[in-house]
């Protein structure tokens, strides 16, 4: 079955969506990702959607769900590389993804993740 690879990179997980995301694929990704996060105890998830040029309400909602799910599993989620057209569609659908971090490209996304996770550590140390 077709699925989107989830790469483990130290304490982070990396997902790049390179194919057209249809409903079943999105649901599979959601399952895979949550399983991976809990198995590896990942601290951050980076989802690259720069190749995604069409979203519908379902995909948009699933993306929001994936981001929120990983947050609940104590992993910071960064959504990177959203295209202008996709951003406009998401906003028109009312999916402004509150609480989800976003970045322009993978590079900045990784920097953001490192920063976020680093901050967490500092807090833990302080405690």
């Amino acid at each position, binding site marked *: 079955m077709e699925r989107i690879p989830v790469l483990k990179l130290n304490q982070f997980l990396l997902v790049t969506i390179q194919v057209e995301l249809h409903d079943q694929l999105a649901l599979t990704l959601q399952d895979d990702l949550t399983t991976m996060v809990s198995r590896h105890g990942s601290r951050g998830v980076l989802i690259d959607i720069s190749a995604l040029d069409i979203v519908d309400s379902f995909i948009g909602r699933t993306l929001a769900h994936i981001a929120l799910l990983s947050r609940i599993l104590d992993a910071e989620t960064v*959504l*990177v*590389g*959203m*295209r*202008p057209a*996709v*951003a*406009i569609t*998401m*906003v*028109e659908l009312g999916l*402004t*993804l509150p609480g989800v971090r*976003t*970045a*322009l*490209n993978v590079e*900045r*996304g990784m920097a953001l993740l490192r920063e976020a996770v680093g901050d967490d550590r500092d807090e833990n140390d302080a405690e």
Partner: protein
Amino acid sequence: MHGEDGSAHARRGDPFKQGENVNNNATDVAAVVARYKADILKEWVQQQREGSSSLSGVRSNGDALEQSSQFIDLFSAALTADPTVENESAWADVRTVLESVSRARAIQGFSPTETATFVLSLKQPLFQRLRQEAKSAEALGDAVWAVSTVLDSLGLYTTEVFLRSREEVIMKQQQELLDLSTPVVELFSGVLALPLIGTLDSERTHSVMENLLEGIVEHEAAIAIIDITGVPTVDTLVAQHLIKTIAAARLMGAECIISGIRPQIAQTIVHLGVDLGDVTTKASLADALRLALAKLGRGIAPLKSSTEKS
């Protein structure tokens, strides 16, 4: 187009009750036009020159002569083929010529009257010839009526094409204005500014949003400053559009700062109960730039040499 055809039928309905008779007259008209083509053409061009020279002598006479002779050839041919303008195929060529004449004149800045005069000024020379050839007053009346119906219909068509071309020009200008009025400027690497000037309607806000998002991708910007100093009024719709734009920019990983909110606009926003949420607002573009630089971990400081001097 349909409306015009319908009204043309209605207009032509009454006078053509006698059918046959009129058709005969019309064929006479065709014969007269064919016979005196050269003379009519000469008088017609003269007429046009007198009518339009005072207003716009820009157009060369050769141009007018060529258009006129081409028109009269086709007009004569069409009259012979079918004397009523209702027949689309017979008059198609005539219409094409009229279309090009009228389009050219619209672009050259002629008035609608001058453009319609191109066809309507054909009446006088034509009527003169008809009067010479007429066998009876009744026949003349019928012939004149037939010709003026045809010419009026063509004249209306000219005006319609004229207006259509004008509208096209206006639409094009509107589009250009739209493109010009929403520039995205890079202030610093990673900082974009979007100075908005003029009233924001829904179409413009849409292009603003698109331009900004494209700009963010192009310049890899982390922060975008939307400056609304030049926006005279903000209503709920505009505010909502701004909020949408900011949300879309955030989804792409860029932060937005709104600057240049004037006191009246601030009051309006509060009175309307618009929730700007956690959007950062700054009084001036300078303040916004300072904040943007600070967020990027940069700042503006005086050069060392100048501090030493002072």
